[in-house]
């Protein structure tokens, strides 16, 4: 075809139509800050795989995931089927880099909302940038209590946070006490960086506020290659309950040292993290039978949403979905749902939609009792249950309503 005046004239409206279509389907860009290099890179990449899966679920029709919002349709229906696009930023484990990431995502990539950032201290610094720019920031993963105590207008958190875990543990222990088992002497064994220290502090604070005393607190270095001194001091103090706040290699080491030193605390609670790591179960699962854990996620019964989501995740990664990935995934769903309800990519509209979120448990991947934010931006229906390692998996054992298996005490090792 030669270029004639007529064809040129025709091309103009044709281009305009094309452009309009393109605009209608302009993707909605979300910024996600994660540790993709550095010490926490493994966790960051696991979360990224989960989120990538959800992006696919939202952008393509997945009718089999029925009650999950946005699954059956492709894209965001109220935005003309616009696709979700996630722009990833690596926080390199540094609070300053996390801040640069937030600024870059907002001003360069023009994301409409931010999520992240795994480490609580990086969530802290990066959300401060979002607050100054008036961009919604949602964390489905960081649990430090101070994040929602800042009076921020643009900050939301879907995950349960540290004081709620403390409450869960003590509620559970009160219940165990009713069964006639002693639970008054609680020992906390925590690794001595940010994570271990802050969770240990929250548990201790909760205990003192409720007139209970922590019997013994042991802090240790997660990189140490020998934990026998810690185990020996537990052995001589004889606590009723030991709560571990540990990373992976150290929690494995504790189970092995229990075995070699012939000591078994009656009740062992692992605070997620190391105890939830798939390599913990594969390497010392047989030495940790009866270890309790907290989890906001359980694979659940065949046919349930959590079960189907696990099947998809397992197909993609070869691993079972666990609490540490399911919580961020839940946060991401809440964000996408809010943008869809807002029917707009304007920050104020998204913020308003987030604040008005009211998601029933049936639409959730996690076991939360729903998603509804209080005025600090904390999801006050966030919730975890107690699980127990029985055989090769953790199964929910408490509260009774969620329980799939019967609680088996004491810790068998």
């Amino acid at each position, binding site marked *: 075809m030669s270029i004639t005046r007529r064809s040129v004239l025709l091309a103009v409206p044709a281009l305009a139509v094309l452009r309009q279509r393109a605009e209608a389907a302009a993707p909605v860009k979300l910024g996600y800050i994660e540790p993709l290099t550095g010490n926490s890179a493994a966790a960051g990449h696991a979360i990224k795989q989960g989120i990538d899966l959800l992006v696919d679920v939202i952008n393509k029709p997945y009718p089999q995931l029925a009650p999950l919002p946005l699954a059956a349709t492709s894209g965001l229906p109220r935005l003309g089927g616009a696709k979700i696009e996630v722009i990833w930023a690596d926080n390199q484990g540094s609070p*300053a880099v996390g*801040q640069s990431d937030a600024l870059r995502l907002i001003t360069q990539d023009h994301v409409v909302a931010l999520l992240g950032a795994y480490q609580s201290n990086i969530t802290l610094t990066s959300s401060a940038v979002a607050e100054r720019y008036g961009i919604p920031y949602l964390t489905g993963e960081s649990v430090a209590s101070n994040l929602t105590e800042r009076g921020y207008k643009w900050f939301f958190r879907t995950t349960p946070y540290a004081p709620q875990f403390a409450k869960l543990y003590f509620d559970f222990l009160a219940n165990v006490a009713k069964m006639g088992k002693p639970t008054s002497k609680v020992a906390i064994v925590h690794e001595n960086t940010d994570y271990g220290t802050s969770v240990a502090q929250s548990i201790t604070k909760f205990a003192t506020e409720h007139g209970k005393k922590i019997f013994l607190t042991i802090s240790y270095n997660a990189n140490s290659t020998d934990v026998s001194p810690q185990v020996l001091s537990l052995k001589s103090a004889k606590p009723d309950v030991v709560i571990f706040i540990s990373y992976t290699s150290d929690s494995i080491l504790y189970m092995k040292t229990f075995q070699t030193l012939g000591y078994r605390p009656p009740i062992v609670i692992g605070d997620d993290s190391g105890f939830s790591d798939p390599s913990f179960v594969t390497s010392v699962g047989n030495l940790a039978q009866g270890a309790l854990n907290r989890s906001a996620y359980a694979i659940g019964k065949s046919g349930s949403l959590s079960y189907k989501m696990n099947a998809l995740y397992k197909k993609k990664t070869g691993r079972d979905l666990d609490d540490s990935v399911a919580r961020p995934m839940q946060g991401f769903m809440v964000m996408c749902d809010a943008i869809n309800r807002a029917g707009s990519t304007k920050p104020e509209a998204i913020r308003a939609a987030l604040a008005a979120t009211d998601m029933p448990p049936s639409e959730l991947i996690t076991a939360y009792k729903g998603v509804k934010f209080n005025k600090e931006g904390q999801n006050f229906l966030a919730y975890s249950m107690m699980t127990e390692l029985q055989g090769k998996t953790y199964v929910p054992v408490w509260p009774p309503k969620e329980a799939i298996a019967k609680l088996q005490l004491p810790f068998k090792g």
Partner: protein
Amino acid sequence: MKALFPRAGFAAGALLLFAAPFLTANPFYQRVAALTLLAAISASAWNVIGGYAGQVSFGHSVYFGIGAYAALLAYAKLGWPPIAGLPFGIVASFALSIVVGLPSFRLRGHYFSMATIAIAALAGILVTNWDFVGGAIGVMGPARARSFADLLFRSSLPYYAIFLCVLAILLLFTRLLQKSRMGFYLRAIGSDERVAQSLGVPVRRYKLYALLISGAFTSIAGTLYAVMVGFVDPNSGFGILISVNMVVMAALGGAGTLFGPLIGAAILVPLGEATNALWGARGIAYVAYGVIIMLLARFSPGGLAELGRFIVKGWRRRAA
């Protein structure tokens, strides 16, 4: 011509520094520019002891951390604006220089470097286990500005202006030092400590002076960092990467030259931010860092300054 050239170059450089953030309206580039100056301040501060006096410290993060903690503790404990912690940081850095400098200056070369690494690591462990200063969790700055004095801005330009002032003061100071008797002493110490001593240079005293100046300015950099970022924990205050960055930037630009550290920072900071932005999340920045260090060590151990001198010399020879 020979005298005019550096002056014209200097004027052009200064002009560029003043104008740089206004060349772009992009807030991210402006932040990168501000971060570059901040890195240049700490690298230039390191340069006083590490470059001129040749005492290669790999533990300067200890001063950086002191400054950062001073700022945020002033806020957390006393409710002051973080910047008010600046004098405390400087005083603490002086104290540390005297306590730590006197014994470690007995060591030379690698042994001195190792001692400084140990001191920084020790400081990190100490702070991690000291609950009063926030322990492992760290200290947070004001969540939102209570007044102008909190220096919390949405734009990076005010930070750029502050950092530029501090850097200008530091470089002016270094320039005067360079020309002074002390500057000659330090270079003498840097080239050969024993010879310097035999010529009557009071070696330990002047090394201590250099450490006092260097530590104080590094602590100022730490304070400014804390004011801008609003959070510090043992790793972001005392981590070894902070020290290494100072050394690498100074070495890249040319340790022991006035503008070397600034040039090094102007290359490495944007490079780090750009690689993180462009190829995101693949740690390319560290690879690039490694390659630069290797090339430098092999071809131009004196940094870009040496390379520049070499080129200028060759050009002059050809012109003559």
